[in-house]
């Protein structure tokens, strides 16, 4: 199976896994900035998430939220099995390659 995942998509997908139950766009922005030490705009994350959902790597449900969001619902993302397989395969491919890297590197 072929998975086309961009670097940003891959990171966000991983972050969705890391965030467990609370993976929504703004939380992911904060996590990304914290872990990756880079700025990212809300709308970019939003676009990436939409794309991931379209590709079937994540699914989402709308959750009620309170005052902290001004009463607005939030969309919480969960990784799908396809998504899991995709990042696992990427990880495995990377590891395989890393194992081939000579010691002198």
């Amino acid at each position: 199976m072929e998975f086309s995942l961009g670097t940003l998509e891959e990171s966000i997908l991983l972050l969705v896994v890391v965030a467990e139950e609370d993976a929504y766009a703004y939380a992911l922005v904060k996590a990304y900035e914290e872990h990756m030490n880079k700025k990212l705009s809300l709308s970019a994350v939003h676009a990436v998430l939409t794309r991931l959902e379209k590709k079937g790597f994540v699914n989402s449900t709308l959750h009620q939220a309170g005052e902290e969001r001004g009463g607005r619902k939030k969309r919480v993302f969960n990784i799908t099995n396809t998504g899991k397989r995709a990042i696992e395969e990427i990880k495995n491919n990377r590891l395989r390659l890393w194992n081939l890297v000579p010691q002198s590197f």
Partner: protein
Amino acid sequence: MDVAPQNRPNPPKWIERIIEYLCIESIQDEILGDLYEAYQDNCSLYSIKKAKFKYITSGLKFLRFSNFKRSPIKTSSNMLFKSYAIIGFRNLKRQKLYAGINGLSLSLGIMCSILLAVYIYNELSYDQHLSNKERLYRLNTLQFEENGSIKQEGTATMLPLAPALQESFQEIEHVTRSFNFSRFVQTKNNKSKISITIADPSYFDVFSFKVTSGNKKHLFDVPYSVVLSEEMAQEFFGYENAVGNTLEIRMNKKYIPFEVTGVFESAPINSSLQPQIIVPMAILPLEFNKELSNSGNSWRTSFLNTYCLLRPQSNPLDFNVKLEQLWLEHFGEDLKSLYEDGEWGNKNQAMAGFRLQLFTDIHLNGVIWDGKTDDSRKMRLVYLSLVALLILLIGGVNFVSITIGRSSNRLKEIAMRRTIGSSKGQIRTQFLIESMVLSMISTMVGLLLSYLLLPYFGTLVNQSGMTAYFSISLFLFVCVFGLVVGFIAGLYPSILLARLPVAKAFKTNAKIGKSSTFTQFMLGFQLTAAAVLLSFVLLMNKQLSFIQKKSLGFNPENVLVIDLNTANDLLYTTFKNELLTHSSIASASATSRAFAKGSMTYGIDYKGESKSFHYFRVDPTYLSTLNIELLRGRNFNPELTTDITEAVVVNEAFVKTFGWQNGIGEVVEGFYDGDKPDPVVVGVVKDFNFESLEDRPLPALMSMDPEESEYENIIVKIEAGNTQEALQVIKEEWEQIEPDVPMKYSFMADDIASFYRAYSRWKKILTVSTILAIIIAAMGLFGLIGISLNGKTKEFGIRRILGANQLGLIFQLGKMYFWILSISFAIALPLLVYTGQKWLENFAYKVQLNGSIPALTIFIMVGVLLLSIVHHALKTSKIEPIEVLKND
């Protein structure tokens, strides 16, 4: 800068609204929620201001296409419009030529009429910039016939008139006098000859030229003060402030310093008055004493313009009546005695009076030329408006008839649409929209073209700055016109095509427009308009080249005109004698005014009748220098000193005006005021045309009397081919006699040509617009013939199989168009004869309106018609008959 969450202001609401309006409903909440959370966090991290800013920027970033609400599901009408667009576009592509003709003719028509409209508007806008223009008047003098009708009207008024008006009439708010003369002006920066206006201090109260520096109330407190236009201030003082500086004006043979007391805004291009340098009336007794004592100060001498501003409530017509009384009651002993002596008409009846003319009428209605009202500018505008209207109509009619023709080729498409369920209304809409879109595109192209061409057009009509008239209202008007044309063009086929029974429309030979009377009528109209325009322009070109070639009665070739600036006669004589020693100079003379530089009009009282004529002061070599032919009698004799005051030479028109038979030996009674004996005519010369050739030859009198006028111009006849050498010689000699005055000269032939510039400009405008009109009409003709041929290919195939040759085909095709053309001529010819005769009445020397012009018109139009028929017939006959007939 942490603010407690409950005290924080809400994020800007408008971002929320935009997102709610534009983005898909299902994602609105998550976006806005996320934005809100980020805002709250940012509020604790940064200032509220920055948090808001971040809120806005990140909110705006959500406005991307993928987040937007999709348009609702495509309805059938949307799909239909798409189909209309596709089909319409394909049709344009398939019939590139006809679509091009269709659009282009409208574009050209609109372009041409916009340009003409801008010009007309500019002419109408003359003097409209003046405030109080509705109560601003010029005083014209009138002379009456015995029966009370107006004999002559003039603009020159007398010096004491304005003070008398101010004194006697309540109605006058301000009155000012002004006249112009040319003098050399110098500062350390510059030196040149400028037209100087002498005016009363009230000039700026009457005319609202804005005084930009200097005190408006104290501009002319001392006689030797001068006020400059901004343009002049720039020219003579550059960037330094002109006010307070000194400007020198050459008067009475020396430069006299004037103090600059003010600067005013230069008059706009559409102003009748173009004052440059203004000096006060107060210098008249100081610098023009000689002229003043020479009866310049009396009621009998008219030489300046009087303008007045009436009080708001006063009625100019009532005022005119009061003014007439002025002659009889108020005006000095001078005039009274004239009446009493019976020298000036009947004592009980005013022989002369005044009239107020609205200042804004002057440009179009009141150009007074030699005592007559000149309405040629107004007539030209009327003609031009007609031409503009005709061209616009030709363009519009073309669009309509070709659109109709083109749509008649689409019967199958319509039948198809009807079969699959299109309603009549839908088909109507389709055609209407299609033609309106095309007409709008052409309109825009026309607007753009006219905008781009305006600078070139401006040089053609010698008028700059007309871009200012490209306003929103013009734009809207043109757009509305385009829409209306598009609507009419679409309406006819849309109704006709939608009404056609489906079964009939499927038949291959079904056609509309082919023999439709509407189209024929349109074509007829176009051809008539084109024929009228063409024949009129032909007539005009013939007439104008005729008058330009007409013998002037003198020879201006190789004659140099040099401006003299109050030089005395002695200096001139030295100059002349020096010049004549050079071989490159044929002859030299001097005159009060060279031809085409204006002239002096004299009015005298000859045996109880008032006569007017043009006066030239000359010297004995004048006639030979200008090659004026002496008919009878003799020229002035330089040996006879009595000739200076006692002899005059007149032209034939003068003899006729005075009612003489021969003229020689007649005494010009009433020429001199005092005891001086009146002069005797010693010679009669052939008429010469020193002003517009429209007029009859004007009576002219020449004398040598230095008391009558100074020499203003020296005229030098140069040996042909020696121009450069002669100019060099003349310049050197000039420096000998006038070292501190630069020599200003022109060639008389050029001066004369500039006299006709108005005509040639007018000729150019009309010729160019007529050519355009003909091109547009020809395009329409060509297109219509081609379209009607499309449906005839089968007929032609069969004809050819049966043995018709090309000539026969051309004849077949041409029959109908020749009919239309003949009817057009039948309508155009009387129109031409009527307007042509009327127009020719303006000229003293005119061409005959004979058969040659209609013949030439017919020749050109038939030529165009034949060319397009031949082109199409050849094209059609190239198609093999089998190609068109194989499908049946």
